[in-house]
């Protein structure tokens, strides 16, 4: 019987998600100083839920993305800068080339648990400094080129625009189908060492793949 402490079948229980989320946020904070930390948003604030265990989602917001020219394929990750506050200048970022619209693009990322598929799902949205939402076409220009070509192959089964499960607004979502299969693959190394993947590492492993789609790389140290 799954105690919730181990990853079975590449899927997570809702309690496992809470544990994995905390572990992920802690490791991120420790190893990823160049980016702001993820925060936990409890569902209690947004719905009538009053469960025994705290349910919620992870949120990383106001990430400033500066896209580079298409010819520059050296570094596939986005040139991410942190925005310290609205008043100060951003600290230590390199503007390679301004994006085509010559404006700043901001992104919000939410990692939400899907009770149906028992896996995490990445929701994200982009907007300009005035708050106007960015279309998928514009966002595609900010994404690494490999995920753009995947997008072009299938319009309906990769990144789709759907309603955020809790916020009543359109967000973009990374389709969860298949998640448990590649998590199973990722956890093979643990299994061959004679143990299951501990649940604390689930989101770290998951994000090491998913983050790359949206250009957010995580340092290798986080996988330890």
């Amino acid at each position, binding site marked *: 019987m799954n105690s919730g402490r181990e990853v079975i079948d590449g899927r997570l229980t809702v309690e496992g998600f809470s544990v994995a989320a905390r572990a992920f946020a802690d490791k991120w904070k420790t190893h990823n100083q160049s980016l702001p930390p993820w925060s936990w948003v409890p569902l209690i604030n*947004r*719905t*009538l*839920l*009053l*469960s*025994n265990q705290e349910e919620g989602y992870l949120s990383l917001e106001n990430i400033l993305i500066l896209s580079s020219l298409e010819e520059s394929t050296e570094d596939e990750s986005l040139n991410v800068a942190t925005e310290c506050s609205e008043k100060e200048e951003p600290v230590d970022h390199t503007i390679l080339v301004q994006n085509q619209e010559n404006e700043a693009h901001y992104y919000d990322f939410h990692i939400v648990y899907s*009770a*149906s*598929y028992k896996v995490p799902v990445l929701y994200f949205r982009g907007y300009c400094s005035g708050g106007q*939402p960015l279309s998928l076409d514009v966002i595609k220009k900010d994404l690494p080129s490999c995920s753009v070509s995947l997008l072009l192959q299938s319009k*309906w089964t990769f990144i789709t*625009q*759907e*309603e955020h*499960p*809790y916020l*009543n*607004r*359109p967000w973009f979502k990374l389709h969860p*189908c298949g998640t448990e299969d590649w998590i199973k693959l990722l956890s093979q190394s643990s299994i061959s060492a004679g143990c299951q993947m501990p649940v604390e590492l689930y989101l770290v492993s998951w994000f090491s793949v998913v983050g790359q789609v949206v250009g957010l790389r995580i340092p290798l140290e986080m996988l330890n």
Partner: protein
Amino acid sequence: MANEAVKYVWEGAIPLQIHLHKSDVASHPSPPPALVLAPRIGYLPLLIPHIKPYFKDSLPPGEDSIWFDYKGVPLKWYIPTGVLFDLLCAEPERPWNLTVHFRGYPSNILIPCEGEDSVKWNFVNSLKEAQYIINGNCKNVMNMSQSDQEDLWTSVMNGDLDAYTKLSPKLKMATIEDEFSRKASLSSPQSRQGATEMDVAGQIKTARVPVRLYVRSINQDFENIEDVPGIDTWDDISYLNRPVEFLREEGKCFTLRNAIESLLPEFIGDRAQTSGEERSRDDDNTEEADGLLREMGEIKLARIQGIEMKLEIPFSWVVNNLMNPEFYLHISVLVKAPQR
């Protein structure tokens, strides 16, 4: 093989009176409202071919981006029409007065709708999710041929239950045993496939049922249901898209109430049931018990397919007879919030 209840569900319809929004009226006099009968299991964008002819002469020039609102609230086009009606009209309004817009799509609130394709994609996606919940995988939907998928969707669009009944077995959805026929069918092998998790002894343990719960919460009791105020925004509704884990226990019946309470734990226990009785043998605990009861919320009303449900009905019957064609059970609930 479709039973009578399913026939009623498929035949259910809402009479709509659709008014063109005044900012879209470019003619004088403004056109009269369109009267349309909308299938409960259908979706508003599918009605557009029936509605547009009424108004096409009145529209200003330009491209259409069609959306509907009810008393100022933009309607989510991917929610079945019957569910929208049950949820937004505390007291059923017949005909249901809606406003149609051909311009100014609120894309900061509603996801875009590119006509029938979007509705079909939403349906297939929900079907996949439902199958994943019931069967543990969605390979049957994924492996369905393009033409079968097309035909299945067409049968839903046209409200053709016969065609749907011929095609849906191809989905190989595991069935939820009806509580009443459970003992009779316990010996039949197909009843145990997929939907239920078996423990080591082979006893049927849990099933997962796709449910979409829409909760409207009010703070006070109302004499008449028509006095319940309408919603101003979708933030007034709590939406839960999560499966009900259906625990089967010998000798106990899992009711609709059990199902709703499993999704809304703070509404467990009916205040009406316990308040009038001699609930407390132990007088020392009376004050505590009072406080606890006050904290509990109360399920005032649960509507499925337009029916005000008695909460004691076996949940398996509700699922098998009242679910939508994508295998989701949509439940609109009115609750009185717990007092704190």
